[in-house]
């Protein structure tokens, strides 16, 4: 701890520089790339974080495998067998993960022998399907993050959107395209209202948004349970389970290829949302205000911006995006089944990890959403392909580890002996309950 030699404090104290500010980008020469690697630029840190997460998860897979443990017990009599089994255990799991998420060489061989060509693209289609809600909840968290707010309530806002979308989906009769649009808009409004409530409460009373959103999540879960236990509201008539009627065919998103899950129009909605948020943040006045408020609320106030209005507005948009995520699940054509108490799953909290990995930038969120979607899609395949089963929960572990490492660049730098660099963003946001 030699504070005199390396002043570490300015790195932590430096505010997140507003990106896309007019400074010219250095050209991507070899020297620049090497420099970036040595200094641990954000991209390099992210790649190393993914690598570390995969390594630790591999250890977890190996050391929970009875066969491998037995082989290690006989290490001194048969060292080769232990190593081979260890390698086999990891390789089977991760290659199944890859084949389930990106593509499987077997399908190419099959296509030559008269199999379907669509099967080659099925893993990618599945990845896009899984990534769709993650991108949207990720954007929801990210845009609030840029305005300095931490939206843990994407889960509750998701429920709000899901209820409205499901209700419009089964109870209202509309022509094909209009019905789809109505459902999507309904979900948007459902989520946006909840988000706006949070923003408005924060603006009017200063109450911490994290506390309000956590509490609203549970209020919404209970509300969902209530609505699903009465046929007057969302429960399917003649059902004793808490489940809504399936939505009408007119309201289901068209999708590519065979039966769902497959990439569908929801993915286009997500891409449009990425483009919209990117435009909003970097090109519009409102977005500029959001970023200013996020970087320094006091400066924003003295510049004549209404911090409170920005909070309410950004939460409105954030909630709307979480609601949209719900519409992509409800209108995805199933599986999963119609709205039920498990529909919200972990989308809201996964959105937080997606936003953090994407460093709260729209394109970053898109990439992070695709990565986690791929893990999700591959994880399901991996679970089926391995023996003893590698449960799909490992995906959650990988996600958590990735974000943990991304959030602590000094740790990654220490592990890989990288030089300390200038501020890389994430360290700057630490703030307490008291704002």
């Amino acid at each position, binding site marked *: 701890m030699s504070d005199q030699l390396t002043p570490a404090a300015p790195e932590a104290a430096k505010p997140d520089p507003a990106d896309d500010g007019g400074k010219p980008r250095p050209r991507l020469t070899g020297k620049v790339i090497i420099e970036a690697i040595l200094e641990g630029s954000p991209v390099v840190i992210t790649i190393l974080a993914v690598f570390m997460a995969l390594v630790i998860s591999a250890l977890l897979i190996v050391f929970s495998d009875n066969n491998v443990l037995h082989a290690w017990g006989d290490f001194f009599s048969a060292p080769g067998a232990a190593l081979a089994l260890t390698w086999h255990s990891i390789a089977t799991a991760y290659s199944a993960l890859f084949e389930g998420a990106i593509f499987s060489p077997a399908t190419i061989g099959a296509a030559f022998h008269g199999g379907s060509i669509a099967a080659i693209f099925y893993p990618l289609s599945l990845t896009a399907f899984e990534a769709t809600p993650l991108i949207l909840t990720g954007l929801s968290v990210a845009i609030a993050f840029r305005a300095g707010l931490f939206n843990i309530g994407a889960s509750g806002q998701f429920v709000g959107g899901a209820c409205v979308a499901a209700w419009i989906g089964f109870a209202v009769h509309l022509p094909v395209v209009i019905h789809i649009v109505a459902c999507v808009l309904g979900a948007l409004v459902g989520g946006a209202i909840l988000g706006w409530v949070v923003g408005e409460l924060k603006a009017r009373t200063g109450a911490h948004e994290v506390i309000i959103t956590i509490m609203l999540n549970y209020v919404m879960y209970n509300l969902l349970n209530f609505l699903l236990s009465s046929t007057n509201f969302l429960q399917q008539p003649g059902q004793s389970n808490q489940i809504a009627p399936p939505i009408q065919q007119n309201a289901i998103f068209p999708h590519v290829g065979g039966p769902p899950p497959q990439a569908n129009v929801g993915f286009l909605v997500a891409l449009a949302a990425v483009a919209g948020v990117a435009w909003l943040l970097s090109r519009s006045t409102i977005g500029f205000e959001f970023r200013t408020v996020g970087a320094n609320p006091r400066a924003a106030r003295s510049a004549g911006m209404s911090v409170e209005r920005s909070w309410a507005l950004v939460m409105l948009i954030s909630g709307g995006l979480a609601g949209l995520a719900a519409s992509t699940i409800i209108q995805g054509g199933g599986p999963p089944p119609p709205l039920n108490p498990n529909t919200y799953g972990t989308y809201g909290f996964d959105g937080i990890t997606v936003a953090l990995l994407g460093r709260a930038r729209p394109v970053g969120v898109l990439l992070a959403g695709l990565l986690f979607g791929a893990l999700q899609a591959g994880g399901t395949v991996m679970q089926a392909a391995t023996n003893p089963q590698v*449960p799909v929960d490992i995906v959650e572990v990988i996600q958590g580890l990735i974000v*943990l490492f991304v959030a602590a660049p000094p740790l990654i730098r220490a592990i890989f002996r990288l030089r300390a660099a200038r501020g890389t963003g994430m360290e700057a946001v630490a703030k307490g309950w008291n704002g």
Partner: protein
Amino acid sequence: MTTLVAPIRQSFTLNRDSLAAGFFVLLGAIEIAVFGVFAHAGHATFQLSISGSGTQIPDIKVPAALVCYVVGGLSVVIGFWRGIAEPSPRLKRLAIGTVITFFLAALLCWADAGNQTAVNLISLVQQSFTASIPLVFGALAGCMCERSGVINIAIEGQLLVGAFTGAIIASAIGSLWIGLISSSIAAGLLGLLLAVFAITFLVDQIILGVVLNVLALGITGFLYDRLMVPNANLNAGNSFSAVKLPLLGNIPIIGPIFFDSTIFLYIAYILIIVIQIGLFSTRWGLRVRAVGEHPTAADTLGLRVLWIRYRNVVLGGMVAGIGGAFLTIGSVGFFNKDISSGFGFIALAAMIFGRWTPLGSVAAALLFGVADSLAIVLSSLNVPIPSNFLLMTPYLATIVAVVGLVGKVRAPAADGKPYVKA
């Protein structure tokens, strides 16, 4: 420095005292106009002893509507008194407690009026206690961490890890006590992880807590499927049985409620007292609070800020781990994926609702436990109040509290701010 409830737009200018008074009067009015008027004719019956054990006390039969009118009237009177007089803080708390108890009494009378089945008050309170045990441990863990200035949103994850470790170790080794100790240690290790990243690597503590929760959910879910599902003997389902304290356990009414439970309730008593006294009446507590309120000043006076924070976060994790163990080896015995199902977040709410004090958190946790067990009792009486609305009340109450309608809720000043030596 803005505080948690600092009004930014001055639109809530309502006086807190008149608000509280109005709230009391409103509850009284509900008791009279809803519960009293709409109560079925007849008596409400309450049992005060558990059948087949201990001293039997005859059931109490009360005229339901009359009780509702009386407690309603009393609540209104207390409300007016609260609005006119300026009571001391102790009396204010007493008034809140009384009015809430009255409301619950009226609710139960209304629910049970003319009903054949009696409401067993003893088992109702027992269930409330049982429901609040994990919340109590979680909230105490939160107090430990946040008083020293580290936000702990990972309570949920610590409960989950504690629950898993307790179940698997107790099953593998065959000793519940070792299971309990190891769940405390495992959750303490998760606390250490929180401490390392929050204190040493200066990661935002709210982000960190969320990520640790994801991690805990993933790891326990993974190991459950990987280890427990194939080997049922690793999830054997043993659990602590109730221990009735000699003498104390035989006292009518009080005995079965307070002194006839699993070891976890007794550990909770001890920890509540130790942490409350420790934080507010010892040198250790003064130092912890100094570090949580103003680390720079504490550092100037020679306190080792980072060490104190590390210690508290790890200890907090260990406390949460005991609460986690309760979820498996303290009650159902078996571990299941996501068995903590949000208890950690309710504990967080209880801690905030209790204003970052151990006793306040425990009171809040109890209130949440009552809401939980009332939901069960009322649905068994076929009352037309959906149980989900009862289950919702703790969360709504917390929102109301942080929004600033009921008293001032303020976090320790340096809560969540990493300390970097200048």
